[in-house]
């Protein structure tokens, strides 16, 4: 017994020592402040508008007084080129941290979109772009030459000037050479309306702060499409030159790859060229820059001393000192941590609405809903190209889609699945979003099982098998298989199965893990899926509504047909072919109003065919913000196209003391 006890004491000591040793690498890297003060563009004398002195965060002021950082006016662009960010409620106070839960480096965009700085960003209404990193632009009459101006004296987060050379470098040595694992974005090609010929744009430097993009054919939506496809369109040339094989040679790149702890240079260049915001060694233009290893238990981003935006009073943004993203293993910890006050700004889907609302007062936070341009929150897409000929014919029959739409009681679905938050309506473009159609939401939305059964009989599904389920007219087994990649929709699918089976349709739900789901989509093995459609504007991002490639379940291998140029897949016919035709006209269109008209035609075809059936209207995205966190807009749209939370301009969020 004595020996055992001794052994245990020894084990305890060893374990504590082990913990002590191994966790040293989790310590934050010492904050290295760039002392480098490169020649600053001093053509324009520093103006202090109205005699007020520009203000900066206390933590930076300390560094300046210690001589570790150049003074504020040397870090900012020329006074007339500073971007003034509108605040939502009031001028903020410096300090504090944005504490958020994070699932780890896999969720690159969680911190990515919140800090993203695009050349042009979408405006509040989401209908056009406004200058962000760029100061402005001019375009010629037929939309072929875009002249883009940058901000004079603007700097990277390490103090090196940001100029047109950084844009040209990105274009010449990264994008067109495809160094970071992305093909040249579609936005940079213009299309000949007559022949369909695609031509790559030309990018030229005019002077240090101006460059032009020249298209062979008109490209009306060029800037919007860059904002969605490419987002930034620049890279820190001075950093990239030290790692790209073109400049240092393959051997040296491999060596650097290993130094950074990577195996394969290609993967390394993707991480450093595309997901650069996760790495503290890479300068960015963002409000906060990485400070710790994203793989540690807490990822910290700290304010960029060279950030180029101020509020209306000339205080340098961002207001908050840091973003602290703490690793969680399970989504429920996000809820728990928010209730306990561990996090101060977190986003939730409406599933958590009740628990958040119940604890609003106790947890001292408020829930801000942002609308989503989603068509529904619970719905089914019917794959129009599903391989089984009987099933395909059935899914393509508009009467079948009407039957399964009216055969389900939407009131019950919305009450049970969405806690009554969603409207009992059809999958349709919500009011206020581009593409809204009068009466769409009510289409086939009334619960009418008698009529549904009549429709199914009319199609010819009159035979029944021994379990009293309908069979195809030739007596073959009819099973509706819904493929699902998580258990989040369990309640909805349970209800749906009941209603479908009441109509005599045998229904099977098959849950697979996301990777397998992805592969099945490519192999066209998904007859029905619950994926939601969310589109801010079909002209900006057509993926969900136009079959251009394999991505959205309803058009299945029609997408493969377009993607492969007709070599593989299923040839689109009828209204689907009409949609593709409209899309080609949009691409070659010369003016914006024509694009709007053509897009509207696409929406109308979707309304007519209803390939996607919705059983509950869209639900909002919820922002749970601590009551001290201010300046969070309440009227924004949550969409990937608008960079989700980035659309609220987080640099001006602040913590009120």
């Amino acid at each position, binding site marked *: 017994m004595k020996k055992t006890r001794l052994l245990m004491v020894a084990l305890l000591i060893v374990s*504590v020592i082990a913990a002590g040793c191994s966790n040293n690498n*989790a310590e934050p890297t010492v904050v290295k402040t760039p002392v480098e003060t490169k020649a600053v563009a001093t053509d324009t004398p520093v103006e202090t508008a109205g005699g007020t002195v520009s203000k900066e965060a206390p933590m930076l002021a300390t560094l300046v007084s210690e001589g570790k950082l150049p003074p504020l006016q040397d870090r900012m662009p020329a006074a007339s080129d500073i971007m003034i960010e509108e605040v939502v409620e009031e001028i903020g106070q410096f300090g504090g941290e944005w504490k958020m839960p994070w699932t780890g480096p896999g969720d*690159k965009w969680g911190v990515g979109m919140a800090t993203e700085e695009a050349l042009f960003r979408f405006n509040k209404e989401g209908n056009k772009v406004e200058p962000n990193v760029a100061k402005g632009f001019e375009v010629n009459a037929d939309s072929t030459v875009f002249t883009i101006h940058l901000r004079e004296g603007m700097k990277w987060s390490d103090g090196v000037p940001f100029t047109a050379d950084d844009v040209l470098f990105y274009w010449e040595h990264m994008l067109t050479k495809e160094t970071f694992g992305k093909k040249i974005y579609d936005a940079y090609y213009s299309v000949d309306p007559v022949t369909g010929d695609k031509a790559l744009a030309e990018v030229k430097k005019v002077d240090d702060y101006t460059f032009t993009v020249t298209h062979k054919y008109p490209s009306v939506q060029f800037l919007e499409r860059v904002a969605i496809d490419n987002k930034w369109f620049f890279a820190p040339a001075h950093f990239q030159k030290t790692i790209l094989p073109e400049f240092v040679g393959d051997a040296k790149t491999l060596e650097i790859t290993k130094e950074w702890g990577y195996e394969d240079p290609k993967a390394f260049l993707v991480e450093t060229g595309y997901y650069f915001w996760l790495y503290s060694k890479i300068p960015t233009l963002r409000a906060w820059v990485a400070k710790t290893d994203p*793989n540690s238990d807490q990822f910290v981003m700290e304010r960029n001393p060279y950030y180029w935006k101020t509020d209306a009073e000339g205080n340098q943004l961002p207001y908050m000192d840091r973003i602290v993203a703490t690793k969680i293993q*399970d989504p*429920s910890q996000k809820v728990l941590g928010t209730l306990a*006050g561990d996090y101060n700004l977190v986003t939730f889907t409406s599933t958590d609405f009740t628990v958040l609302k119940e604890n609003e007062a106790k947890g001292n936070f408020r829930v801000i809903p942002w609308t989503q341009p989603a068509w529904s929150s619970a719905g089914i897409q019917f794959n129009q190209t599903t391989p089984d000929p009987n099933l395909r014919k059935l899914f393509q029959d508009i009467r079948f889609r009407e039957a399964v739409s009216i055969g389900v009681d939407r009131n019950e679905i919305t009450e049970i699945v969405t806690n009554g938050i969603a409207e009992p309506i059809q999958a349709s473009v919500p009011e206020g979003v581009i593409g809204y159609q009068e009466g769409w939401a009510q289409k086939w939305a009334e619960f009418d099982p008698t009529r549904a059964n009549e429709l199914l009989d009319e199609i010819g599904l009159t035979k029944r098998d021994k379990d009293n389920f309908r069979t195809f007219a030739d007596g073959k087994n009819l099973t509706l298989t819904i493929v699902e990649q998580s258990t989040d929709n369990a309640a909805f699918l349970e209800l749906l199965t009941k209603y479908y089976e009441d109509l005599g349709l045998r229904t099977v739900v098959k849950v697979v893990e996301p*990777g397998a789901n992805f592969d099945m989509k490519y192999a066209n093995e998904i007859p029905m899926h619950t994926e939601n459609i969310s589109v801010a504007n079909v002209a900006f991002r057509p993926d969900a509504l136009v079959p251009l490639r394999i991505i959205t379940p309803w058009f299945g291998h029609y997408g493969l047909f377009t993607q492969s140029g007709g070599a593989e897949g299923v040839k689109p016919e009828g209204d689907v072919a009409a949609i593709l035709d409209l899309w080609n006209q949009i691409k070659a269109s010369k003016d914006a109003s024509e694009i709007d008209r053509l897009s509207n035609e696409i929406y109308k075809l979707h309304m007519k065919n209803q390939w996607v059936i919705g059983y509950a209207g869209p639900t909002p995205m919820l922002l749970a913000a601590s009551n001290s966190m201010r300046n969070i807009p309440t009227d924004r749209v949550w969409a990937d196209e608008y960079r989700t939370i980035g659309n609220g301009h987080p640099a001006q969020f602040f913590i009120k003391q």
Partner: protein
Amino acid sequence: MLQYSIKRILMAIPVVIFISFIVFYIIQLPPGDYVSSYSAQMTATGEVMTQADMDQMRANLGLDRPVYEQYAMWAKKIVLHGDFGFSFNYNKPVLDVVKQYMGLTLVVSLVTMVFQYAVAIPIGIYTAVKQYSAGDYIFSGISFLGMATPNFLLAIILMFLSYTWFGDPLLGLFSNEFVNASWSIDKMIDLAKHMVIPVIVIGLASTADLIRVMRGQMLDELNKPNVVTARAKGLSEIRILFKYPTRAALNPIVSTFGWSLSSIFTGATITAIVLNLPIQGPVMYNALLGQDMFLAGSWLLFMALLTVLGTLISDILLAWLDPKIRTEFRGN
């Protein structure tokens, strides 16, 4: 005994090689690979992944080659360079990932183990000696409850209580402000505070189990002739208790001790996910889910190795503890 040990170690080698192949094969079995799960994840966050992107990624990672070729490359690297491959999820060598989580895993596992033995053995002895007393019933009742309650459920209940009473669910092993801080007294206290729930939750089921085993063994041993003889010779009760029955009753506990080696290494998985513990279990779970095959493969291999090693250690420990077994060895 030395010869016996060497023989056992040599026999373990083909077992480990065989296991490593099976492990690699099993990881390849589920549909899809790392690229498809990565693509699914990226698409979910709004990124565009084309077929060409995916093909290129597969080629870069060597995932387009046949299984045996991938296995041969992996095995070669392990044997020649001690390199267990690369974790796709973490973009780091597998060993670095394992190292990152090892320290805290050891702390949680070992403290849990100490807790188990420290609680279970005395209670086991007590309930046997005072069989059918009120104390016996109470402890037996608790231990049955402990065995029957799923760990993660208990974790949720304790977190809920902690949240309602103290306003802090005690998630993770550190409070937010200490996660990246360097070691200090405050951080140790914070860690100790956060360890209470995990240790109780992870340890409870096996503690309950151990109590039952210990009690049963003790009851068997208490009336053995050697105990009666010792009592007849006038030795004190306490002395008798520790000298004979306890020592013999520890036998099955020690023989299973070696098996717990692999669980020390992994830590509890589901409980760790529920409690947000930064230990190996969840890392392994995610590696399997995301088809991060070298990480998952190395993991399963380590566990297999540790099980083999653990059995060996158990045998040696038994020989040391039990004179009967020792004599048998000498006899050989």
